């Protein structure tokens, strides 16, 4: 019996427990099951730690990773530096092996961490309230659109075409069964920014919300000020953001965004093949009762001592069931902890500096790439750390050649936007080194 890992039962334990229960066979405890599975699962027998570790190490080594390869690709998941304190502190098993803080008195660690996280997200986005995490940026956006309907009861969504294509797809999946429909707003081919005229023409009485991405999928920085001016106040203004950019860019809350969502992976979370990430969700306080997800609040204990607990649980599924604001239960609290740690380490100065470095690296990269004459600029709108270029080399060939040199090249845009032809999306972060950029450019110059 004790030949299986993690199981404490000795043969003697089992005998004693059987005897206490008056049973002779474990299947007596399964006697109410009409048709017990007779066969054996077609799964291998258990392996020892040594063998399991070897198997997993082999699988990991089949993947080329960003610690070995340079990368010029972002598009929603970014290769940022993770300060060394973050994972060892976050991985404390008293965090990792705890669950939802149902018993506040033995969960003050979790609760304070999430309260601090909420505060950081509010301060970073200039919003009034934040929940304590969603799954990812895409599902956070989908939930934001559903929330817009809860706010104004309307069904039409205007979505910028430059919101991350996967977020658009996820939103569609979530909202169409609620009778909502999504209409795209075009971008200007010169700047890569939202087409304001298109926006204005599409806003109607039925418009529930307007969704824009800041920066957008092409890396271009939307002018939230002028967009906001075009969006009537009864329409919910939803901004999808990239938190690292907010060290440099004005916070969306300053443009009167109603809901801000985003992918929080960039805040100290590893890329991890895209998951688990972190769904950021912040809003105006007046809408707090319409929000999805868990929210932590400050209170006092019987002695007046500060403590924290979950608040507004009556919005949540475990209390409100079919009338809840969302079905979310397990969230991404651990990733929120990582993000909070990241923001603590970077602090007020660091978030600005890292944001600026991203800006400068990307602009240097763009300039150098254009100088190789293998690429043409596409948009003239301001950009943060990503930008679109038109490649004179076939993009697949380009990336194949770069892979041989141990670089992941730019994202090939036609996979996401058919009209994009040979256009590609480059990304640079604070981890992109000048020597990699210079190597890339000189290598490209040699390509024909």
């Amino acid at each position: 019996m004790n030949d299986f890992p993690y199981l404490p039962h000795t043969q003697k334990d089992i005998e004693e427990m059987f005897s206490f229960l008056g049973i002779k066979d474990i299947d007596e405890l399964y006697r109410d099951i009409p048709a017990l599975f007779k066969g054996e699962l077609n799964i291998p027998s258990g392996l020892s730690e040594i063998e399991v570790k070897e198997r997993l190490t082999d699988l990991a080594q089949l993947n080329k990773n960003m610690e070995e390869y340079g990368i010029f690709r972002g598009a929603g998941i970014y290769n940022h530096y993770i300060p060394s304190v973050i994972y060892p502190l976050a991985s404390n098993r008293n965090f990792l092996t705890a669950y939802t803080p149902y018993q506040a008195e033995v969960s003050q660690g979790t609760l304070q961490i999430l309260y601090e996280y909420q505060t950081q997200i509010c301060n970073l986005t200039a919003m009034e309230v934040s929940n304590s995490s969603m799954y990812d940026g895409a599902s956070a956006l989908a939930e934001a659109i559903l929330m817009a309907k809860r706010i104004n009861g309307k069904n039409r969504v205007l979505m910028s075409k430059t919101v991350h294509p996967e977020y658009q797809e996820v939103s569609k999946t979530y909202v169409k069964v609620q009778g909502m429909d999504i209409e795209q707003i075009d971008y200007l081919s010169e700047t890569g920014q939202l087409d304001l005229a298109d926006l204005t023409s599409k806003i109607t009485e039925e418009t529930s919300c307007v969704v824009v991405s800041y920066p957008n999928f092409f890396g271009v920085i939307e002018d939230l000020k002028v967009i906001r001016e075009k969006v009537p106040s009864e329409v919910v203004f939803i901004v999808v953001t990239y938190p690292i950019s907010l060290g440099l860019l004005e916070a969306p809350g300053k443009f009167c965004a109603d809901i801000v969502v985003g992918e929080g992976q960039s805040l100290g979370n590893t890329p991890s093949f895209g998951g688990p990430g972190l769904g950021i969700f912040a809003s105006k306080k007046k809408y707090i009762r319409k929000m999805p997800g868990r929210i932590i609040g400050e209170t006092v204990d019987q002695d007046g001592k500060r403590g924290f607990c979950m608040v507004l649980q009556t919005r949540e599924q475990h209390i409100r069931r079919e009338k809840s604001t969302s079905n979310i239960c397990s969230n991404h609290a651990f990733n929120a902890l990582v993000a909070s740690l990241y923001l603590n380490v970077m602090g007020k100065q660091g978030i600005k500096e890292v944001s600026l470095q991203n800006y400068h690296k990307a602009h240097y990269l763009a300039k150098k790439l254009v100088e190789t004459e293998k690429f043409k600029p596409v948009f003239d709108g301001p950009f943060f750390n990503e930008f679109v270029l038109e490649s004179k080399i076939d993009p697949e060939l380009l990336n194949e050649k770069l892979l041989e040199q141990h670089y992941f090249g730019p994202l090939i845009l036609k996979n996401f936007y058919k009209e994009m032809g040979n256009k590609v999306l480059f990304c640079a972060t604070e981890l992109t080194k000048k020597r990699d950029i210079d190597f890339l450019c000189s290598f490209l110059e040699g390509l024909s």
Partner: protein
Amino acid sequence: MKLIFEKSVSGRKSYSLPKLDVKESQIDIPEHLVRNEAPILPELYEVDIVRHYNQLATLNHSVDRGFYPLGSCTMKYNPFLNEEVASLNGFKFIHPYQEESTVQGALELMYELQEFLKEITGMANVTLQPAAGAHGELTGMLIIKKYLQENNLGHKNEVIIPDSAHGTNPASAVMAGFEVVKVNSNNEGRVDLDHLKSLVNENTAAIMLTNPNTLGFFEKDILKISDLMHKNDALLYYDGANLNAIMGKVRPGDNGFDVVHLNLHKTFSTPHGMGGPGSGPIAVKSYLKEYLPKPVVGMKESGEYYFDYDISKSVGKMRSFYGNFLVLVKAYTYILSLGKEGLKKVSELATLNANYLKEKLSKFLNVAYPDVCKHEFVIKGTSLKDYGVSTLDFAKRLLDYGIHPPTVYFPLIVDEAMMIEPTETESKETLDEVAAIYEKIVEEARREPDKLKEAPLTLPIKRLDEVKANKELNVKFD
């Protein structure tokens, strides 16, 4: 203790970045889009941060600290091996948009995990995309919705859900565009079959069942229920929260379920992370294969793995990218470690532990229903009311003994419920100790009920004022 913001001192820092190695460009962003005030974030040095979290960690109960029998949450031990392998660079530092040829290891792992989960559930196809159990439920219900629409059954809009179900079930059904109809439990703690029959009609789209259910009982009429539903062109949805009781013993697919979700963070031992991330794969019968969210992982004849986006009637995408990949790595590792015999043993011992503790507690507490349970059971705390003591009081007193209370006041159909799931990773000695503590507290309830009403007495914090918390809504530090 102090908030991290209260430890901030202007001018401190703990980050370090290399000097910018490229020429600075001009900031050609319109001035009104440039942040003019840095966000208010703490200014700290590294030691502040380290000590802050060291202290916060002491304030949490955790599986690594002790018994944590949250019913339906399956707080089993989370192996360190899983964490170790999930932290390999080849898993942590891969980008979702890498060329498939550069992520063959990740794809192979996902493919094999799909295969394992198909086998465990007895289903034909699996998606690993959902991020959590509830997310899986939504995915599954959207699949059912779309299937019905595509097959001219779009009028079917009612989902039947037992009164004992998890709150996520009705919430998910509604998010998927259905209406919820509640079916009662009978006096054995199972679905009342007569009531169910009376509810099924031409609008019935599906029934969502947890099996074993939240009372810890196997729905022994499952084959009848399955027949009833299928005869009425309605589907069966399986909530996998309680799968830990039945691995290798019975398979939802064999019982007629059409859609199954799994909670990798419960059954397959990935850590709960203070709330998440989890992972909630969905398994379906083959006729629903074309409805899965895009993409799934396929294998070519060459043995090469790829993302299969060719899913004709897909519900669409449920989230960005492919799922909570690192969680998948841990679950895969767990399955490799236990193997087929081990997984079966897990379920058997989870069931043995629950029955053992139930029997022990039944000597001095009322078990809600007398039958043999599976991985969990429910205590009806009403007997304590004579002493003016509530289940909440009882739970808070448990904290003083260093063990975590069960899930309380759930399921809703049991008064003053305590829902206890010990899991298989707790030893007999622990269960004996726990039973002794429960007995002692029952005794205290009789003799010194105030001790319970004021509990916890020994923790750094006493009972919190939740009314104030909800009235004042201080949800950020200013």
